[in-house]
């Protein structure tokens, strides 16, 4: 027999779910507004708006630049997530073995997380500045002609490195916590069975880290897709040509620089669809490989 809870007052259950409803409304209201504005074109000051149906969308998909932006975003997002996660995993494994001054190392590694994305971008931009940057000076020394003002691939590489550098600390923190929760006895048992450090890592440590890795994958992709806007804004502004113009930067550029709210809203809606799809795929397919 199933047990049923019966509320005496009819109002009480509604009252109890009210906070959830309120949060839902807060989340959904702006999304609704974005969807609504995407069907209009509007002047900057908001005096008039005209219904244009799907024009804002068809215009976007007729624009080769916009389509290219998907590719750029994908390369950027995947590279940032991969770079940030692999480096931080390496660092976490190393820091986990350190016996002396472990806290000191950890503090130093966590430090960059306190740097705002825009500043992280500017720091790297300055280091790599073709005329003034120390890194570009070294690169010149080894025969690399560095000019991210002109070379789109170099510019993309620059923003990937800057974005990943900033995220390494965050990932490091989670990986380290994950590593420390792995039972020592399992590793000892494997060591007694003559499993080397590499083997131990891939057969014990890494599988046990999958929940952390999966969580970080989701967080890092979301970070790369959305939070890196400030970084690109402060450095390449999408250029040269449109080499670093990722989707979220275009939303800003169209809406805030161009005052074209209709098209900007349409881009936001597309981006929203993309996130929903991405999250769905991750939870549906990638999560299966996770061993809790």
């Amino acid at each position, binding site marked *: 027999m199933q047990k049923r809870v019966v509320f005496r007052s009819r109002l009480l259950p509604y009252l109890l779910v009210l906070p959830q409803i309120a949060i839902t409304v807060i989340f959904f209201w702006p999304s609704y507004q974005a969807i609504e504005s995407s069907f209009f*074109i*509007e*002047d*900057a*000051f*908001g*005096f*008039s708006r*005209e219904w244009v149906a799907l024009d804002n969308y068809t215009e976007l998909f007729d624009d080769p*630049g916009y389509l290219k932006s998907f590719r750029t975003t994908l390369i950027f997002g995947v590279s940032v997530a991969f770079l940030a996660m692999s480096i931080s995993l390496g660092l976490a494994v190393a820091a986990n073995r350190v016996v002396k001054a472990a806290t000191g190392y950890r503090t130093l590694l966590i430090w960059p997380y306190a740097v705002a994305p825009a500043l992280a971008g500017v720091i790297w931009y300055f280091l790599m*500045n*073709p*005329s*003034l940057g120390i890194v570009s000076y070294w690169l010149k020394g080894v025969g690399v002609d560095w*000019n991210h*003002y*002109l*070379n*789109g691939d170099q510019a993309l590489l620059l923003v990937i490195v800057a974005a990943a550098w900033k995220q390494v600390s965050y990932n490091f923190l989670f990986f380290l916590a994950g590593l420390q929760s792995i039972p020592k006895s399992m590793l000892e048992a494997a060591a007694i069975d003559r499993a080397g450090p590499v083997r131990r890592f891939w057969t014990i440590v890494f599988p046990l880290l999958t929940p952390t890795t999966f969580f970080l994958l989701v967080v890092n992709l979301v970070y790369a897709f959305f939070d890196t806007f400030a970084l690109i804004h402060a450095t390449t*502004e*999408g*250029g*040269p*040509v*449109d080499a670093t113009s990722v989707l979220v930067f275009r939303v800003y*550029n*169209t809406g*805030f*620089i*161009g*005052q*074209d709210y209709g098209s900007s809203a349409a881009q936001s809606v597309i981006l929203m669809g993309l996130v929903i799809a991405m999250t769905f795929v991750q939870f549906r397919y990638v999560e299966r490989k996770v061993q809790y």
Partner: protein
Amino acid sequence: MNMKNTFAAAAAASVAASSAFAADKAEVQFWHAMGGQLGEIVDKFAADYNAGSDSCQINAVYKGNYTENMTAAIAAFRAGEQPHVVQVFEVGTATMMAAGDKGAIYPVYKLMQDAGIDFDQSAYLPAVISYYTDTDNNLLSLPFNSSTPVLWYNKDALDKAGVAVPTTWDEVEAAAKALKASGVAKPFSFGWQSWSNIENYSAWHNIPLGTEENGFASLKTEFTFNNEAVVNHIQRIADMGKDGTFVYGGRRGDSRGQFVNGETALWINSSAYYGGFKKDIKDFEFGQTMLPLDTAVADAPQNSIIGGATLWVLNGHEKPEYACVADFFQFVSAADQQAYWHQNTGYVPITTAAYDVSKEQGFYNTDPMTDTAIKQLSLNAPTPASKGLRFGNFVQIRDIINEELEAVWSGEKDAQTAMDAAVERGNALLRKFEKAND
């Protein structure tokens, strides 16, 4: 309980005191985009004005760069929290004007009329105010900081290479080659490329940038800068890029570093770099001269057009506050303030009087060639092609031009293809602006 009451009373008293203070002076919010040294001068102007006025208080607030400042003001307007005065860069003019037709803007000529100030428009330089007047020649916004691109040069490097300061594009090319041979790494470069090498190149040679008098006459305007002259000019620079005599250094002023550290000896950008250069350049003698002439296109230069920003007044506030705005505008346009501004920044003096004051003070003797910009602007009476430009969505269109030019510099496209694409993409945005604003 007692404590609470005391606290409440104190709070009430302090609120009363501050509102009493506010009642004494009408407060005016002034949002600007002048950072660094420029911001300090703006603050000084506001402070000087406030000290001398017993009825007005100007609150100058830095709101970020030009785009951020304009966006902030528009967003504030939509929320009903707009400042009285906002500084908007020249390419935002069409957007502001379109909003003016709908009542968001309080035109400056009307503001002055309503405040009973005898406002003499002819005191301003024609090349400056023509950019900001309506079709009946009424001034809509107050010119504040205006500059124009000039050719900056490194005198020591030119001497070492044995070349004179170039005056034509052929000479620029030859000089850049000689400079390269003498060891200058990136002989020629520029910033704000759409402004310096398309907009001003066109005006300087009296070539229209678009139809309908560069957009002044109507919203139906279309771009025409994929013409032969501009295309050849862009191709020439692209070819210079191939042999390394031109090196691209970014969309805005990013390439300033190249010039300051001596890597670049010929640099086209705003005259307003003067103040900073004077402070930063110690190792070599630098100078400025007029933009080069393309002898294949014209026999003599026309006049260059300005860049910079003006002060727009937004509607929706009280009358006494607008009287303060008018008074403050009188104050900043006065010859003393303008001369100070001009001499310390390199922006042009916007009134003839300020120019005269600078002459009398002997500024052009101690700082030679600093009148290059003003001479360039007033070289000839502005024609429809050299009076300025008024294109909607131009902020975005400049980005399109940036993208297409970068494609040329990197060798991805040739000049003709890129300019055709820029015109086509630009026109699409012009049509969109027309649709949203008519």
